[in-house]
């Protein structure tokens, strides 16, 4: 959100009256990332979200390793146990007797993995596309951005469904399919930033020094885009996770016995009448992950997005 509490402008120290004590210039104290980290740390919600996400990541890495149960073995003598502290199944078991805690943690692994991997794909494409279009300008820019405009009108949900249905339901295909359709926003934002970076003195200086074309984009443009890229990566991850969950919910994503949070919500929705926890546990976890990414992304945007300052 662009309107927030007015922040102290760090450049104000430059306007300190003569004679005022000069602040000790510790190395790196004015760097972009240092200031950004300080601004982020001031936002308690974003920090809390990051901590919760960290706990979830650690839990979903460790719990399946150390749990005596696995996600696929069915125990027909322990069917649909409700969550309880005694008996070894803290979150209960599903109708096939599989431990819900381990399954839900595998679901987190899949959801987070897909979210991060597909976001990386979309960022790679988006940054490359946007930076080249913005730096090249002219006809190249016009054609590349026209292509983005056309793709904006393509109904992607049907296309991804078709892709996953027709070419098998493999995990890597889901990464690629989702990544390939979610790069448009990033390409537009990166292009806009590149257009303004191109006018800066340091780019001009590099050009005078003989740097051109691809080297300029790699060495001087892209590193200066990292701020907004980090922000939009954080905001892309939850949409990607939602999209994977949506595909899994329709039965087009991860295939049984492997679980993703989306497929567990789908299974749980069918069983919610006698066993509501089968729906509630994965649904809550999925929502918490997405809420945390949204808060973290909002916080990062306030801390890093140069257009907000």
């Amino acid at each position, binding site marked *: 959100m662009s309107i927030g509490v007015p922040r102290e402008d760090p450049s104000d120290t430059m306007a300190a009256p003569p004679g005022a004590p000069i602040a000790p210039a510790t190395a790196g104290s004015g760097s972009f990332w240092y200031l950004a980290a300080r601004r982020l740390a001031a936002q308690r919600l974003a920090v809390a979200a990051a901590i919760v996400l960290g706990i979830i990541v650690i839990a979903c890495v460790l719990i399946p390793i150390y749990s005596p149960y696995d996600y696929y073995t069915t125990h027909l003598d322990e069917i649909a146990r409700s969550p309880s502290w005694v008996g070894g199944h803290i979150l209960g078991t599903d109708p096939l007797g599989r431990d819900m805690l381990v399954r839900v943690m595998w679901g987190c692994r899949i959801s987070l993995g897909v979210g991060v991997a597909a976001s990386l794909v979309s960022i790679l494409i988006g940054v490359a596309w946007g930076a080249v279009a913005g730096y090249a300008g002219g006809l190249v820019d016009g054609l590349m951005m026209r292509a983005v405009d056309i793709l904006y*009108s393509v*109904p992607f*949900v049907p296309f991804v*469904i*078709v892709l996953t249905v*027709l070419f098998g339901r493999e995990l890597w295909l889901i990464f690629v399919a989702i990544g390939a359709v979610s790069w448009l926003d990033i390409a537009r934002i990166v292009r806009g930033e590149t257009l303004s970076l191109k006018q800066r003195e340091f780019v001009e200086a590099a050009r005078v020094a003989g740097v051109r074309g691809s080297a300029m984009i790699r060495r001087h443009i892209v590193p200066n885009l990292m701020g907004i890229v980090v922000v939009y990566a954080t905001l892309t991850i939850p949409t990607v996770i939602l999209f994977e969950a*949506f595909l899994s*919910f329709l039965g087009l994503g991860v295939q049984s016995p492997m679980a993703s949070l989306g497929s567990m*919500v789908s299974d749980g929705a069918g069983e919610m009448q006698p066993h509501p926890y089968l729906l509630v546990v994965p649904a809550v976890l999925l929502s918490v992950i997405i809420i945390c990414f949204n808060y973290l992304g909002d916080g990062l945007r306030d801390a890093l997005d140069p257009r907000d300052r």
Partner: protein
Amino acid sequence: MLRYTLRRLVGAIPTLLVIATLAFFLLHAAPGGPFDSAKRIPPDILQNIQARYHLDEPLGLQYLRYLGNLARGDLGPSYVYRSTSVNQIVAQGLPVDATVGLTALALALLIGGAIGVNAAVRRSTGWDYVLMTLAVLGISLPVFVIAPLLILVFAIDLHWLPAGDWVVGSLSHLVLPAVALALPYIAYVARMMRASTIEVLASPFIRTAQAKGLPPRLVLWRHALRPTLTPMISFLGPAIAGLITGSIVVETIFGLPGIGRYFVTAALNRDYTLVMGITVLYGVLIIAFNLLADLCYAWIDPRVRLR
């Protein structure tokens, strides 16, 4: 205005061509065809079927034939629902999607707008935080989590509303699907309205209105509201298209006979023409509503110049 509209309509043709071409070649590149089934079909019968649907022709010819039919508004016969055309299936399903989608849109605008303006006016108070936390929740909760919970509470526990199915003209069958579909959009509209209201309330003409002694209510309704609506309009085009295409999950959960549900089964059955038809239709809807939104934008805000 007319020239602009015409130019945009002409500009939509290559976009649609891209969509149709992508859909066509993607589907034909896929392994497996609509008539592979567990039952072995005798070869001469298979040949007859393929000749009937022109599947024995070279791919290029099939493509041109498809584009020709598309240009005349004919989406072709369904491969799976025999003796039914895609046009008939769409004509049956689209009114359902339109009813649910537009109801959800109305809910999103009214409720989301009210929440957003309220939060903006009571900015940085407890109210604002509560409302905006709810909005983040609304954006983060997926439809397929909300919908089963709504069914659990309002249909199974309370018996207030039916859990699904569709009866034409029945309001009670409309409520749950429309609310489930609307919730994320309510949250979205609320956040946008809050941001744009705060921005407008900080502008000089509002200070003038306050300075001349107008009561706050009048300032809000008579002066502030209209400019806050302009960013909403550019959001409306994509939102309407999203509501119509995004209803796939809602249709699956509530068992509504809309085109989204047909789409998933069609893709699973490799019903090429039905999949392509619905994809192209979605493309047309997205383009049409975006154009409509841009036109409304220029109509409401005379400062906008159409190029």
